[in-house]
Structures are given as C-alpha cells and as structure tokens.
C-alpha cells in the first residue's frame, strides 16, 4: 500500500473482536461475542453507513470509536494512529438527543467548546453560527423540553458540528422521529455535510436512509457482527428528496433488501434477537 492511499483512510479496523460478559438464564457467566474479526476502512471525507439487523454490533463498534467502549482484540487506527480513549476530534449523536436539560439551547451547543477550553465570547459566536445553520436561531434561549423531537435532534446535530470534530459518529440519529421530520433532517444533514465533507459513520437499520445518505454502505452480518459486504452508492450528489423515486435508487434498494432478509432469517433460525 502506498503512503498516499494510506492517508486517505480515516478509520481502519482490523480483526476487531468484542466479547461482552453476560449472565445466562441460569445465572452463570458467559461470553457473548458481539464483534468478531470485524474489518472496515472508512475513507477521509466519506459518508459511510453501517447497516445490519438488530443486535449485530453496529452500535458497539460506534461506541468503541467514540471511546465509550473497549475492544478485546484486533487493531483500530484513526488517521493512522491507534485509537485514543480520549480525543477532541470526534463527536457522537445519539438517537436520544442527549441534550442537557438544565441548559438552554445555545448553552447546549457550547458544551463541546467548553470541553476544549474555548473562551466564552468565541464559544457564543460559534454556537450561534451553527444554530443558524440548523434553522433554530430563534430558539437559543429555550430549554430542550420546550422543543419538539425534531428540533431537539437538530440541536444535538448543531452541538456536535459546533464542536468541529473531524469524525462524526451517528447512532440511529433519526430513528425516534416521525417520518416527515426524519426526511427533512436527512436532507438537511446532507446539505450541511456537503459544505465541509467531514467523515461520517452513520449507524442505521433503515435501508432507504442508508442509500439516500451514503457514499458507501457497509452491510453487517448478524451477531457476532462483521462486515459482510460493502456497497458503493453511485447516486449523484447533491442528493435531494427526489432521488428516492429514481430507478437506480429502487434497484439498489432491492439488492440490499434481499441481503438483509437473508440475514434476518438466519438469526431467527438461531433463536431470535437479543
């Protein structure tokens, strides 16, 4: 491999294994293998989705990258360096927003900047900029509980963007939202991403969402999870809502759907989900 192509790789995971210690029905300790020989390369500036059946370990891998979980063996590098437990270069968006209820919207946006010791005036300026970007400038002094679910997730996204990480991790960020809000936010996230092309690793269990958003979709097997296949989505960018109705979209969708079906059946024959 040439040094040049190495520089293009943002995240490299090789033979990553993660075993959870759980208690089985009889109360005895047991090892549950969640990730096994998990290999994945995510390129710099790429929008990559991790797609797979429930309980396949997608979120586990994301948590490991976010420094929130360990892995038992294998190797992960970010920018060619071994993965650090603490880092100022990554941000995560959860399904459950994770906004601080005692802080106003603008103060929530400033959290990441406080962690990085950016001074107050500068913090406010950056926070305002990103709040405007997600169209919530008028709500800066509201508390999260005063906002709708879609608005809260906008705030969560603005918060992570204001923090300016070079790796964005998203764990089913739109799963809790209604269909209309979800579609709006998908397009909005794409629009924002087009402007600075940060690397995004996006966990989802929605095939449509993965196709619409991604450059590549990494399709995971059922537990113990590993990457079964990686599919490039060669749809033109910038993508809009209309792309869902195109023939190409339909054919990619059909292809992925049949793969997911086969996996789901396989799990069921193992005795169901977690």
């Amino acid at each position, binding site marked *: 491999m040439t040094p040049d192509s190495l520089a293009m790789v943002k995240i490299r995971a090789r033979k990553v294994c993660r075993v959870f210690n759980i208690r089985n029905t009889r109360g005895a300790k047991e090892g549950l293998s969640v990730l096994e020989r998990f290999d994945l390369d995510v390129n710099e500036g790429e929008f990559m989705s991790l797609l797979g059946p429930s309980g396949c370990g997608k979120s586990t891998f994301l*948590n490991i990258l976010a420094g929130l979980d360990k892995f038992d063996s294998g190797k992960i590098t970010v920018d060619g360096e071994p993965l650090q437990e603490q880092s*100022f270069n*990554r941000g995560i968006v*959860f399904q459950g927003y*994770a906004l601080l209820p*005692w*802080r106003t919207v603008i103060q929530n946006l400033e959290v990441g900047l*406080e962690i990085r010791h950016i001074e107050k005036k500068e913090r406010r300026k950056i926070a305002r900029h990103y709040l405007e970007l997600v169209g919530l400038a008028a709500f800066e002094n509201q508390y999260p*509980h005063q906002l709708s679910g879609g608005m809260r997730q906008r705030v969560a996204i603005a918060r992570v963007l204001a923090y300016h990480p070079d790796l964005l991790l998203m764990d089913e960020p739109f799963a809790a939202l209604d269909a209309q809000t979800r579609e709006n936010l998908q397009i909005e996230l794409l629009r924002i991403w087009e402007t600075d092309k940060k690397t995004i690793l996006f966990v989802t269990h929605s095939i449509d969402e993965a196709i619409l958003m991604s450059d590549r979709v990494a399709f995971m097997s059922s537990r113990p999870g590993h990457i079964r296949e990686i599919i490039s989505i060669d749809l033109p960018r910038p993508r809009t809502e209309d792309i869902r109705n195109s023939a190409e979209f339909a054919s990619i969708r059909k292809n992925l759907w049949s793969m997911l079906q086969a996996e789901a059946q396989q799990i069921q024959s193992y005795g169901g989900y977690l």
Partner: protein
Amino acid sequence: MKDKFYRGGELLSRSVGLILFIILWEAAPRLGWVMQTYLAPPSRVFYALWLMTARGELARHVLISLQRVILGLVVSSVVGVVFGLLIGYFRRLDRVLDLLFQAFRQMSAFALFPVFILLFGLGELSKTVIIFWASLWPVLLNTCSGVKNVDPVLIRSVKSMGASKLFIFIKIILPSAAPEIFTGIRLGGSYCVMAVVAAEMIGASSGLGYLVLYSEETFNVPEMYGGIIGLAILGIGLNWILQSAEKFFTSWREV
C-alpha cells in the same frame, strides 16, 4: 388588577380550612366544650403572643431556635451533599455503606439524644448534633440517589467529546443531581424543626421548644400554644425559603 384579584381569591379559598379551624378552636373553649385551662382560645393565644413580642421575649426564643436549626441544617447539608456525591459517584463505596446508612436513617434522632448528651454534654453541641443527625440522612441519601440517577447518555455524549472526569462531575453530574439534592435539603429542613423542639425540651433555657415546655409547667397555657404556633410558622418559613432557593437553582425544570 384582575390578576391580583384572582390571586387574592385563590389565597382566600386555600385558607378556608385554616379559618374554619380557628373558628372551631375559638368556639370550643368559649362554649365550654373543652376547659379553658387546657385549651386557650386563639384570641387569648394571639394576645399572649403580642405581649411576648412587646417584651422582646418571642424574638429571643424564635431567633435562638432559628439559629440552631440553620446551624444544624447548614452543617448537615454540607456534610450530606459532599458525602452523598462521593458515595453516589463511587459505586463500590455505595455498596459497602448502603446497609449501614439505611440502618442509621431509621435510627431516630430522639432515641439517640441521650447518647449525644452523654457524649457532648447538655450544651449547644449536643443540640446541634441531634439536629444535624435528623437532617443528615435525607440530604445524604437523596444526593446519593441523584448522582446514581444521572442519565448515562448525557455522560456518554460529553465523554465522547473528550470531557475530563472533573468536567463530567461538575458540569453534568452536579446539575443533574441538583433537584434531588434540594428535595433532600427541604426534607432535612422539616426534620430540623422537629429535632430542635426535642433538643430544646431537654436541658435548654431558651428557644421555642423550651418556651412550650416551660409554659406548660407553669400553667401559662396561652403562651404554650403561642410557642406551638411559633414553631409552625418557623417550619413554614424555613420551607418557603428552601423552596425559593430550589426554584432559583433548578428553574430549568419543566413544570
């Protein structure tokens, strides 16, 4: 104007029970249902209160009781919050101490008062200790549970952004636990008012608790009821102050 009128109306409707009670209380001894020697009517009680106020006696008793309550509550709040935070934060510590604390919480401060007198004498120290003991446990256990109930996703989200343990503690755990901490302090405050009475009934020469017992012993029944009313007002006042503080510090909460 309308708002003011409405609020006045609301206060009136909330006071109906209290007013009826005072009327009944006035009527009972006057109509001879109860002997006046045992139950002084409120008019005489308030007159006694007025006289005590004029002599400056009431202020002296109230202030000394208030001082004891505040001293006990401040010490128990500081100790309770500090240890509650530590114990809630370090899970292992919580496991080791939980049973002991549950036992201590059930141990009545009144039952322990003789022990405190043995250890600390009859002076102010043993009084402060009983008030401290009574209010410590609600503060400590509520703080502890507040820390344990912090939504883990909040911690995870800032941790992923590289937050230090200190940042997580001060900026996430502390504000998140604040409502439960205040509930504990408010509960502790009402226990303080109860404990101060017991403390002042044994070996004291001042305070509302002393006033109640001393008046009873000298058959000054109106003053005895005056002291009891004073204690009620002290409790209500303290609760109001603590509630206002709670509202101020946790104003973000959804109603």
